[in-house]
């Protein structure tokens, strides 16, 4: 299926040094974007701790909750009165939750009273009345009193620790899909090398290979979705604060390599330059003089740095390698997470753009005549639209609750920029229409769709792919310009352009330098890849 001409184009593409550099840079950026939750997060990967505060809260509210349930259940056995099944179910669920919380922190032998209470709750749920519910609850509360080191004379149970995986629980199915897809693709390539040895580059890639890889990744994501609960409500978590306040007593904890979240603020560190520069180290933490933007309260000057649990020391050179922003969020973490938005918008917009442009151009080039005239005029009209204005208007005016903003931005960029690809595709299809293989296919009576997509499209793909590569670069640039102006994804989700506009003051050079640098690297990589693709597919260079 892979013709000799195309194989040599493939090797021409990969043989150049700049292609490999570009692809390596892109692989690094995409890996960072896909695995961002596992690289930088304020949730621990594995937490083995005693959830003291949770236990106490459940313990204190056990009796009141049971009293509520008893109140609703008192009429369950009385005939001819309403029975309130939904309220009973609701209260029973609340009590069961508390029982589960208490039971998870106690050893097997200490759970007897809780077990009795649970059975009584089940009776009430089944509509058999809440006879001795409150009595059992009081007994359970007495038995499950937590041991308080401040008041050892009272006695009580020593709580057990529980192992949980908060970070993994916060991953969504989409995240898992891409995390699995990456290694799967690499594994597939390696497997083909192992199986076919040096002949692997000549082996055809069957269509079902793609489908199999995607299906496995999708199955993994689906299973994950079934197993895991709903995504956490807030971007930042309270685990570190809980440890510091004593609500969690930790036995062992494993954090990701950078133990800071992208939405985790730390006002004592606002506007801190990169910690490896002499400015940060020589003068220590900057006094926080600017009032906090939202509450307009100014914290006292010379606030010492508040180092959270599991973070590098306050004077460590690697605490904030790229500095912090106005509320103390680490810039490197936000750049890694921001790549998810910028790269995805660039890619999706380029994909949409290429598909739309190729379809329109193909129809225009293939049909010719009146259709071609009409489509050419449409292309001219769309070209005349003031593109950036239209994108600004469309993005400013889409309702974020109806259309997810990521998709809105990508769709608008695609809808405004497809004309270039359409023109290219039209020229290619016009050229191919006169070729003999097309005439032969027509003579054989193939349907138009088949001729277009099976015979002509693979030959016209060259310039289209090149245009697609450049389209990703321009998509990333446009998205960053939009976020720079404030029209991108809403706070606190970062995007590279938005990060660059956090501060216009010349004192905060790191906030302006580094986000733009990441965009620059991405655009350079895509432009390099596009140029190599163009040289590889240039028909004049073919032997």
């Amino acid at each position, binding site marked *: 299926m892979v013709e000799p001409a195309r194989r040599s184009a493939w090797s021409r593409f990969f043989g150049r040094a700049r292609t490999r550099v570009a692809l390596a840079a892109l692989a690094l950026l995409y890996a960072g974007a896909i695995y961002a939750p596992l690289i930088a997060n304020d949730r621990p990967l594995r937490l083995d701790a005693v959830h003291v505060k949770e236990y106490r809260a459940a313990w204190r509210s056990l009796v009141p909750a049971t009293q509520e349930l008893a109140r609703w259940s008192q009429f369950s056995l009385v005939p001819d009165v309403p029975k309130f099944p939904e309220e009973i179910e609701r209260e029973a669920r609340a009590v069961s939750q508390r029982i589960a919380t208490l039971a998870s922190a106690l050893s097997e032998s200490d759970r007897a009273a809780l077990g009795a209470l649970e059975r009584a709750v089940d009776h009430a749920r089944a509509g058999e009345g809440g006879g001795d519910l409150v009595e059992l609850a009081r007994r359970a509360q007495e038995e499950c009193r937590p041991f308080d080191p401040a008041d050892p004379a009272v006695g009580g149970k020593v709580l057990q620790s529980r192992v949980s995986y908060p970070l993994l629980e916060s991953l969504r199915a989409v995240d898992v899909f891409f995390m699995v897809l990456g290694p799967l693709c690499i594994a597939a390539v390696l497997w083909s090398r192992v199986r076919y040895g040096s002949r692997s580059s000549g082996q055809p890639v069957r269509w079902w290979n793609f489908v199999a890889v995607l299906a496995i990744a999708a199955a993994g994501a689906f299973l994950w979705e079934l197993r895991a609960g709903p995504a956490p409500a807030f971007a930042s978590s309270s685990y570190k604060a809980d440890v510091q306040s004593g609500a969690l007593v930790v036995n062992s904890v494993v954090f990701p390599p950078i133990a800071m979240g992208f939405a985790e603020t730390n006002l004592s560190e606002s506007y801190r330059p990169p910690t490896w520069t002499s400015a940060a180290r020589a003068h220590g933490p900057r006094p926080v003089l600017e009032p906090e933007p939202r509450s307009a309260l100014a914290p006292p000057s010379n606030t010492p740095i508040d180092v959270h649990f599991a973070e590098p020391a306050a004077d460590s050179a690697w605490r904030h390698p790229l500095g912090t922003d106005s509320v103390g969020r680490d810039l490197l973490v936000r750049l890694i997470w921001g790549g998810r938005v910028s790269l995805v918008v660039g890619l999706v917009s380029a994909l949409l753009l290429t598909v739309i442009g190729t379809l329109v151009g193909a129809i225009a080039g293939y049909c010719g005549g009146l259709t071609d005239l009409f489509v050419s*005029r449409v292309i*001219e*009209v769309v*070209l*005349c*639209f*003031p593109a*950036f*204005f*239209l994108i*600004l*208007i*469309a993005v*400013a*005016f889409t*309702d974020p609750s109806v259309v997810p903003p990521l998709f809105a931005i990508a769709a608008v960029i695609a809808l405004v920029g497809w004309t270039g690809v359409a023109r290219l595709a039209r020229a290619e299809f016009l050229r191919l229409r006169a070729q003999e293989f097309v005439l032969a296919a027509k003579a054989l009576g193939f349907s138009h769709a088949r001729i277009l997509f099976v015979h002509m499209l693979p030959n016209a793909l060259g310039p289209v792919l090149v245009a697609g590569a450049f389209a990703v*670069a321009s998509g990333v*640039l446009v998205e*960053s*310009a939009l976020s*720079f*102006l404030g029209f991108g994804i809403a706070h606190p989700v970062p995007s590279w*352009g938005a990060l*660059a*506009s956090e501060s*216009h003051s*010349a*004192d905060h*050079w790191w906030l*302006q*330098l580094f*986000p*733009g*640098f990441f*965009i*620059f690297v991405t*655009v*350079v990589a895509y*432009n390099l890849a596009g140029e190599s693709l163009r040289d590889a597919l240039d028909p004049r260079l073919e032997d």
Partner: protein
Amino acid sequence: MLKYCLRRLAWMVPTLFGITLVVFVAVHAAPGDPSLIRFGSGEGTPSSEALAAERARFRAEHLLDRPLVVQYLHFLGPFDLGASGHRWFGGDGSDPWHGVLALDFGTEFQRSDVSVLSEIGRRLRVTVPLSLVAVLVSYLVALPLGVLSAVRRGSALDRATSFGLFALYSVPTFWAGLVLILLFGASGLGWLPVIGLHDKDAAAMSPAAYAMDTAAHCILPVATLAYGGLAYLSRQMRGGMIEVIGQDYVRTARAKGLPERTVIWKHALRNALIPVTTLFASVLPALIGGSVIVETVFALPGMGLYAYEGLLARDHNVIMATTTLSAAMTLVGILVSDIVYALLDPRIRHG
């Protein structure tokens, strides 16, 4: 030739109206109420009724509660369809003309004593000179650079220039502006001013000093505006020149014994310039539309910033005016570039 021009001009008019219609619908389908942004809702405060009355008056004045068709016709003109509009449409005749066809884009929503057209005039006086200088700089630098690179193809100069231009081409505009400010502004080398167009005490300067001050303020914005076009043009020029130099007529010219200088700059360059003129089409709309990003970064009160502020304030009059102007300039630019292309290349004229 004349028929071609007339046909293109005739096609421009419905295109322009189509564009204004699409933008109009997009603007009016927006969330966000201009009267709320202007006056606020004042909920719970004692002045909420007064504010509501103000808002109602504002909405009536700008026909915000009328059907979309009426609003579009009001925008198009030449008849004013408002309460104080043309007598034929129920107004009292005090201000009968309004709309694009009457060259009246209305008043700003935010400042009701300022007409949009006059404000656009003021902003154009900032944007047009900057863009003009930027275009001149980029063409004057890019064309010779491209020619030299093509002539000395493969040499160290060519490779260095190609690499440098490639990097320049990939730099995002806002980053270039910010980096230039960091480098040349007060916190860096301190050679150039970075904010606005004039110093604080510019009014007290002598004309010569004023001119110098304005020029100094313009250097960085012009550089930021010009570098992208420069990089792109130079690469296009280089590619075109390489293609032309390989042609037979260049070989003939050399065989005739002409000096290399004449071969390159008289014969080859003229033919290589032809595709470059098609790029001229994008110059005109950029000239008028300005660049929102450059104006945001350098705090210049230009057209780009005007459109952006109008967008933020949901100022329909401003948005429609700037978009219509920009679309008209785009169309004119395309037409001019096509005509120039046809003039330069006899094959198109007679083909």
